[in-house]
């Protein structure tokens, strides 16, 4: 977050910065799209054409993916070309700052917690325990550590524990008993 005092209005300045950042982000995205498009085009071109089954060349399985990947490459090229042409003062710097901002850290924390829960805990622990642990740590992390303003630890721990127990019990009971859905 920048705290420079500015002569122009702060909202205009922020809008210009967001535009610069987006122009550079578009360039990165354009490169990704072109590479992805080229890979799919290659995959479609080399896909079996089922000649032995006398399939008409215009109905081969690779036809539509090939056409779509070609369209993706064209869109990527337009996006990239547009991004190169437009001026974006400090765009790369702003894009880097956005990736390291507090907001990005909060989103990253959610991803880490979610991945630990769904990829590691679910499957190794019983579902109710994994769920309880996830809810407890999520609430504690976002209220007592990343909260703006931070909340006092003891009540947060109590709330987090209560919510974890209630969620684990409710989800297990409601899904398994009431709606007869099997849980992971």
């Amino acid at each position, binding site marked *: 977050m920048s705290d420079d005092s500015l002569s122009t209005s702060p909202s205009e300045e922020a809008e210009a910065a967001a535009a610069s950042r*987006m122009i550079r982000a578009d360039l990165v995205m354009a490169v990704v799209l072109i590479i992805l498009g080229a890979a799919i085009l290659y995959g479609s071109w080399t896909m079996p054409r089922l000649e032995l089954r006398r399939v008409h060349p215009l109905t081969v399985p690779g036809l539509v993916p090939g056409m779509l990947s070609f369209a993706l490459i064209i869109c990527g090229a337009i996006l990239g070309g547009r991004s190169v042409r437009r001026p974006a003062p400090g765009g790369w710097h702003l894009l880097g700052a956005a990736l390291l901002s507090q907001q990005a850290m909060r989103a990253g924390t959610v*991803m880490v917690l979610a991945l630990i829960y769904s990829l590691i805990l679910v499957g190794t622990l019983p579902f109710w325990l994994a769920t309880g642990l996830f809810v407890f740590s999520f609430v504690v992390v976002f209220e007592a550590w990343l909260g703006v303003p931070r909340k006092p630890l003891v009540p947060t721990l109590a709330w987090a524990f209560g919510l974890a127990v209630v969620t684990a019990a409710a989800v297990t009971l409601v899904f398994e008993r009431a709606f007869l859905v099997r849980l992971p």
Partner: protein
Amino acid sequence: MFDGLFMLGDGIAHFLTPISLFNIAWATLLGIVIGALPGLTATMGVALLVTLTYRMEPDQAILCLMCLYAGAIYGGSRTAILLAIPGTPASAATTLDGHPLAMRGQAGLAMGLATSASTMGTIVGIVCLALVAPLLSEAALQFGSYEFFWLALFGVLISGQLTALDDPLKGYIAGILGLLVAMVGMETLHAHVRFTFGITALSGGVDLIPAMVGAFGFAEILAVMKRTVEARVVTSADRVVPRIGEVARYWKTSIRSGLIGTFVGIIPGVGEDVGAWASYAAAKRVSKEADQFGKGSQEGLIAAETGNSAVVPGAMIPTLTLALPGSAAAAVLIAAMFIHNIRPGPLLMVENPEFLYQIVAILLFSTLAILVFGLSLTRPLLKVLAVPRERLMAVVYVLCVVGSFAITQRMFDVYVMIAFGIIGFILREMKYPMAPLVLGIILGDLLDLNLRRGLQLTNGDPSPFFTRPISAVICIVIVFTILMSIPAVNKRVRSLFSRGSTASPP
């Protein structure tokens, strides 16, 4: 004509049972709560509820899903008025006038008008659904592979164009990415398996429900938790039930907005948010009090709320008759219908004509439930808005995991949900709309199959795609849509028109 009325009567009678009325009540209320909670959208709610309802009878399952959908679109208005942040994207336009009204101490009036406007919008939409759907369904029986190919392409394109108004290119890219996702798995013409990289779980393709739960659930959690500031609730103790005069005063705006909303609903993949903005813009253009718009105009609030609610029945028109989802939530409904062995499409009116009228009846019941809950449960709904997002989002993520796992009981679907959530979040941060992506996933198979089947029928001759009358019309519309999204062409066409209008006398 009378057949339709009788079937509508049957549809209403069908749901006049205690269990149906109970389902209508809880599903609509749950929808309103989901809509009111920022970060929980209608699409996400419907996607998660599919899991809970898949053991129910088909008619009851669809009843719950539709009631939740309609309730959520309405529920978003509450947050828009009291918090100045839309509960769902559908209520973004409601914020403009709803919140200023609340700031002036008229929060109750704003909530009451939003409720009556929603009801009005749904009723206009329901009338159009009951009248237009059977006609469209009959016309659609004439459609062949050629027409369905163009329709699928048109759906993705127009959704890309209209959901990313300031940058259609990003809408198109999102649509193409969705279509490419649909290419994964076994194709239906020659049963050839594409792009699975040896992963057997992918051979059936990417399932829509986990993908939707990811793109609309997990991605939304990431977006909500990213923000550091929370909004404050503004409320007042004035009257909630509006006077007849207040509602009737803007009857023209209500009907116009209802029709615009329904029309937007019919356009594939273009949802409630566009419906609300389009009605709002139209109301502002013709209003005598245009200067009040954005400052707490009752007319603006009515236009936005009528517009977004009318999209729900409007979206059901192409969903039921052509199996082209009219909105993102309707895409989930299509997936749910297939789970319950209901096949939407042109044959629906032949095979299962009473189903259309059951949908009409469901919408009527949900409208009544919204009216009752919306005008009576003001205080309890305020409590819902006070739930801290740190606590809510943890529980919602657990529901996302359960929701994506439960239908096929594979952990693979949970991984699909996570992948779509993270990619969806990054795309949204870069201003790529989600609706064309989802529409691409659902229409990819239709587009692929019908293009190649059409070419197979003619032994490789593409001319029927351009010479059959309906095909030709849709093709011309597609070309026009793409050309108009190119800035240089757009500017030139507009200048031609403006020159024409300045030349003619005022």
